[in-house]
C-alpha cells in the first residue's frame, strides 16, 4: 500500500509541477526581455509599471510587427542566458552589438547609439589612463561593454562589479567607489540631472570605440531566429523611422537624435 501511495504522490508532484506554455514560430506572440533599471531607457515607476524609451520603442515595434508582446523583466546579466534558455525571444535592454556577444547570440539592426563616459565627484582631477586611475575604485555593471572596457584598459584600478547601474550610482554617491563608467545618457538623466547627482560630473572623454562599445544597441535574438524574427524587427524599425514614430519617441526622452549614424 505504501508503494502505491508513493508512486501516486510522485506522479501527482510531477504533473502539478509543469506549467507549460508553448510558443509558435510564426511570431504572433513575442516575449521581450527588459531590465527595468536603466533610466531613461527602462525603469520601473511607483505604480509597478515599466516605462522608458526602450519600453515605448519595444511596444511600438510590436504594433508595427503585428505581434502581441509580453515584457519580461530580468537582471541584465541574466538576459542572454534567459534568451538561450528560451525564456524570452528577444532582448531590448540597451544591449550593444559587439563581436564578443555575436559569438553567443544574433542582433537586429541597431536602433540607437550613444557613447559611454565616466562620472565622478566634481573636481576630481585625473588623467584618464591606466596609470592616472591607479588605485581608484571604478564601479561597472556586470556583463556590460563598460565592464569589458574597464577590465581591459584600467588594469591598475580596483574594479567593483554591480548587478544594476543603480547600485553603482548608490555607491558612487556614498563614496564607496570613485568613478563609474556607463552610457552617457543613462548617467546624465539617471543620475547627474537628479538631486542626488549634485556634486558629481562627467570626467574624461566620450568613448565611441567600436571594438568595445559596438556599433549601437540592437535587439538581441537567438541565432536560429535571426532570419525570421530578426527580419521582422528590422522591418518594424525601418517603418517607425519612416513614419516619424521613432522621432516622436526620441524627442520625448532626448535632446538630440540617438539613431545610429553610419
Amino acid at each position: 500500500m505504501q508503494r502505491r501511495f508513493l508512486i501516486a504522490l510522485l506522479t501527482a508532484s510531477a504533473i502539478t509541477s509543469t506549467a507549460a506554455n508553448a510558443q509558435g514560430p510564426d511570431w504572433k506572440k513575442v516575449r521581450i526581455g527588459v531590465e527595468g533599471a536603466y533610466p531613461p531607457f527602462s525603469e520601473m515607476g511607483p505604480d509597478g509599471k515599466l516605462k522608458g524609451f526602450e519600453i515605448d520603442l519595444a511596444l511600438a515595434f510590436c504594433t508595427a510587427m503585428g505581434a502581441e508582446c509580453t515584457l519580461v523583466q530580468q537582471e541584465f546579466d541574466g538576459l542572454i542566458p534567459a534568451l538561450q534558455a528560451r525564456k524570452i525571444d528577444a532582448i531590448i535592454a540597451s544591449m550593444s552589438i559587439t563581436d564578443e556577444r555575436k559569438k553567443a547570440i544574433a542582433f537586429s539592426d541597431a536602433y540607437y547609439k550613444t557613447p559611454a563616459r565616466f562620472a565622478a565627484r566634481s573636481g576630481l582631477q585625473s588623467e584618464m589612463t591606466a596609470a592616472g586611475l591607479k588605485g581608484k575604485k571604478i564601479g561597472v555593471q556586470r556583463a556590460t561593454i563598460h565592464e569589458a572596457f574597464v577590465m581591459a584598459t584600467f588594469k591598475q584600478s580596483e574594479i567593483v562589479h554591480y548587478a544594476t547601474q543603480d547600485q553603482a550610482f548608490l555607491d558612487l554617491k556614498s563614496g564607496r567607489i570613485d568613478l563609474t563608467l556607463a552610457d552617457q545618457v543613462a548617467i546624465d538623466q539617471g543620475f547627474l540631472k537628479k538631486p542626488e547627482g549634485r556634486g558629481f560630473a562627467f570626467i574624461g572623454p566620450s568613448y565611441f570605440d567600436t571594438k568595445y562599445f559596438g556599433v549601437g544597441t540592437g535587439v538581441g535574438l537567438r541565432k536560429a531566429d535571426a532570419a525570421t524574427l530578426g527580419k521582422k524587427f528590422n522591418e518594424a524599425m525601418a517603418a517607425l523611422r519612416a513614419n516619424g514614430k521613432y522621432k516622436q519617441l526620441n524627442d520625448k526622452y532626448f535632446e538630440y537624435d540617438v539613431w545610429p549614424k553610419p
Partner: protein
Amino acid sequence: MLHGFLPSLLEGAAVTLSLALAALAVAILLGLAGAMAKLSSWRWARGLALIYTTLIRGVPDLLLMLLIFYGGQVGLNALALSVGHEDYIDINPYAAGVLTIGFIFGAYLTEAFRGAFLALPPGQAEAGLALGMSPRQIAWRITWPQMFRHALPGLANNWLVLIKSTAIVSVIGLSDLMTRGQQAAGTTREPFVFYLAVALIYLGFTSVSELIFAQLQKRLSTGVSQGRL
C-alpha cells in the same frame, strides 16, 4: 514617506505570500514522498531520497535557484525536442520560483516528516492490524493524523525559513516584495526607508505565522498529556 511606492510594495508582498504558499504545497508533497521513500523497503527509493536531501543540504539556495532556473529549462527543452515537440515549453518565473523553493524545502521537510513518522509508537499500528483494519484505514485514521501533530514544529520552522528564502527569487526576475523594494530604493535613492519597510512586512509575515502555528499546535494536541514541568 514611501513616495507613492506603497501599492507596489503591497503587490510584491502579495506575490511573495502566494509564492511561499504554493511552494509550501509542493514542498509538503515532495516531503511526504521523500519521507516515505526513506522509510520504504525499496533500496532504490531510499538511495534516491538520500541523494535528494544530501544535494539540497550541500548547495546554497541562491545557487540552486540559478541552476534550476536555467538548467531546468534547458533540460525540459531537450526533453521536449527528443519527443519530437517542435515548439519549446517555457517555465515562467513564477512557476520556476515555486518549483525551486518547493524542491529545496521538500528536502528539509523529508527529514521533518521522517522524524514525525518515527516518533509514532509502532504499537498503535499493530493494534489497528489486530483489530482487522485495512492498511489504508490504519494510515487514514491512526498513523497520518498523529504524524502531522509530531511534524508541526518542524513544519513551522521550515515555513519560517521558506518565507524568508523567497527574497532570493528577485535574482531570477520575479517581481516579489524584495524586487519591488530594490526598485523603489534605486529610483528614489532612499534604500534605508524601503528596506526597513520590506523588513517590517517580512516581520509581519513571520509573526502572524508563529501565532497561527501556536494555535494549530494547541488544537492538534487536545487530549495529549504533557509532563508537568
